[in-house]
């Protein structure tokens, strides 16, 4: 029986990763995700795993690239400015079709920005987290429980589709403590590489050499790899979109929000319902692939959408695209580390209801 414990979101990710068979963590300190590294530094040496504090974010993601090449479940974590440095590595991981987990506990930007929560890496992570045509799987947890559950999901989806997967959360999610039921230890880390015939584990003089690579000097070959990759993305979009609907049955206003703002929005929705406002919420759980279908379906009956975000309007654009701009899409947002109160969201909902 899995036990229920009280944990910080960051720690829940770390412990869940270990229980999912991750034995190789490479990272670099940055607020507000450092608890992940600190937790790993305590646990990994005791279970024969690797915790390595790299010389930079760039080195850390390249160490992940090396460990992923050998077929291991491996991860790194960082926060927004550090993720900028990892962009190169993300592109190479994607180009070499390597699965790995990258955690981004977002803080305000741009530049050094601040250390308070933000969702301003939304475009960066969902549009193109590095050079070239590629995507990474992006999961957006809204509870500490989901941070643990999605750690497993990220490893599994990454391996199934052979692509990097990211947990994208705002700083609040990393720092908040909640009860969490941790996953059972069900994966033998040693058994994982055998499921990856492409891994560079040494030929043993029994097979031709494996090459992990993203270089294709012949344009027709490179084109082929790009097209094949996007066929996988199409499959991912078809099979793996995840979202939560809340009070959407009779809703006339549809709030769209993720992470901490989805939690704040729920409170505001409950309050608005008491005032007789028919409002519900669609909370995207996968940000890439973005759950367009439920939003398009909602657009057939709601009067308007309201995104609640910690950025200047990034997911707002995805909602407009998902519904083909068929309805008004308003926004309630705070930035720089500010978080809207449920009263602010309620006021925005009231405005929509007028």
């Amino acid at each position: 029986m899995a036990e229920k414990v009280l944990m910080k979101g960051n720690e829940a990710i770390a412990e869940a990763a270990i229980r999912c068979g991750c034995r190789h963590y490479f990272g670099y300190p940055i607020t507000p995700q450092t608890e992940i590294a600190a937790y790993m530094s305590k646990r990994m040496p005791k279970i024969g795993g690797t915790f390595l504090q790299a010389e930079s974010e760039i080195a850390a993601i390249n160490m992940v690239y090396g460990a992923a090449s050998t077929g291991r479940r491996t991860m790194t974590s960082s926060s927004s400015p550090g993720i900028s440095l990892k962009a190169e590595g993300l592109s190479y991981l994607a180009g070499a079709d390597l699965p790995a987990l990258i955690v981004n506990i977002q803080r305000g930007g741009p530049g050094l920005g601040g250390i308070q929560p933000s969702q301003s890496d939304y475009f960066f992570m969902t549009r193109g987290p590095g050079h070239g045509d590629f995507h990474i799987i992006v999961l957006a947890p809204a509870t500490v429980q989901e941070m643990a559950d999605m750690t497993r999901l990220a490893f599994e989806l990454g391996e199934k589709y052979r692509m990097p997967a990211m947990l994208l959360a705002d700083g609040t999610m990393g720092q908040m403590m909640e009860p969490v039921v941790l996953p059972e230890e069900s994966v033998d880390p040693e058994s994982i590489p055998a499921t990856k015939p492409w891994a560079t584990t040494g030929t043993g003089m029994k097979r031709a050499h494996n090459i992990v690579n993203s270089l294709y000097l012949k344009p027709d070959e490179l084109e082929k790899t790009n097209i094949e990759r996007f066929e996988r993305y199409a499959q991912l979009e078809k099979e793996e979109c995840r979202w939560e609907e809340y009070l959407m049955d009779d809703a006339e206003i549809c709030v769209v929000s993720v992470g901490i703002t989805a939690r704040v929005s729920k409170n505001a929705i409950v309050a608005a319902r008491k005032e007789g406002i028919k409002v519900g919420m669609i909370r995207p759980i996968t940000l890439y692939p973005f759950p367009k279908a439920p939003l398009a379906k909602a657009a057939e009956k709601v009067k308007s959408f309201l995104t609640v975000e910690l950025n200047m309007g990034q997911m707002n654009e995805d909602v407009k695209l998902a519904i083909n701009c068929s309805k008004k899409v308003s926004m309630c947002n705070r930035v720089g580390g500010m978080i809207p109160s449920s009263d602010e969201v309620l006021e925005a909902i009231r405005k929509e209801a007028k």
Partner: protein
Amino acid sequence: MAVVFQKPKSLTDAVLHYCPGCTHGIVHRLVAEAIDELGIEGRTIGVAPVGCSVMAYDYFGCDMIEAAHGRAPAVATGVKRSMPDNVVFTYQGDGDLASIGLCETVSTACRGENITIIFINNAIYGMTGGQMAPTSLIGQVTQTSPYGRDAATQGMPIRVCELLSTLEAPVYLERVAVNSVPHVRQAKKAVLKAFKNQVEGKGFSLIEVLSTCPTNWGLTPEKACQFVEEKMIPFYPLGVFKDRA
């Protein structure tokens, strides 16, 4: 008919793309001979750089990984930490190792990762067509130092073995050359030892190989070998800079 000379077993049959007179081929051979002599091909994983030897992954018969520019030591670290019983080497040029990847180079050496680095120093960026390298000599004319490298504005060349020898952790650092038969023989010994150290669990070894780039130096292969002797070796003295093995 008796075979008196053959290609090392751990080199593939792929045709090398290197220019005539380039010494990458010699160094590839030395690496492959070391792998063969130690009987480690089946458990060796190589990491190729970005630079002229970017396609080394096609030439070595062991499992190979292509790294981003300069990141080979970090990638090798990830591999070695995952598979400590395997043999892991990187093969990098001067732009890759001593410029864009210097941080990874120094940090990996400082940690004393039990890996082997083969560092090709030919004082120029070859693949991109002959730009100034961190190891280009003072006065050396390149595409990006058309008036000759000027110390006042372009800095001094970097001596990697000397730099790394100030660190505690590295086990073995040697600079060799491949511009003459005696030098090739010494280079072979050094490369073999660098792999043997790893197999024996001794720690970080780096072999710097003074190499030629006739194409981008604008010299014949023969003159290029003379350039190594007369210009490079005086600034980059050959020898062992550290040997704790």
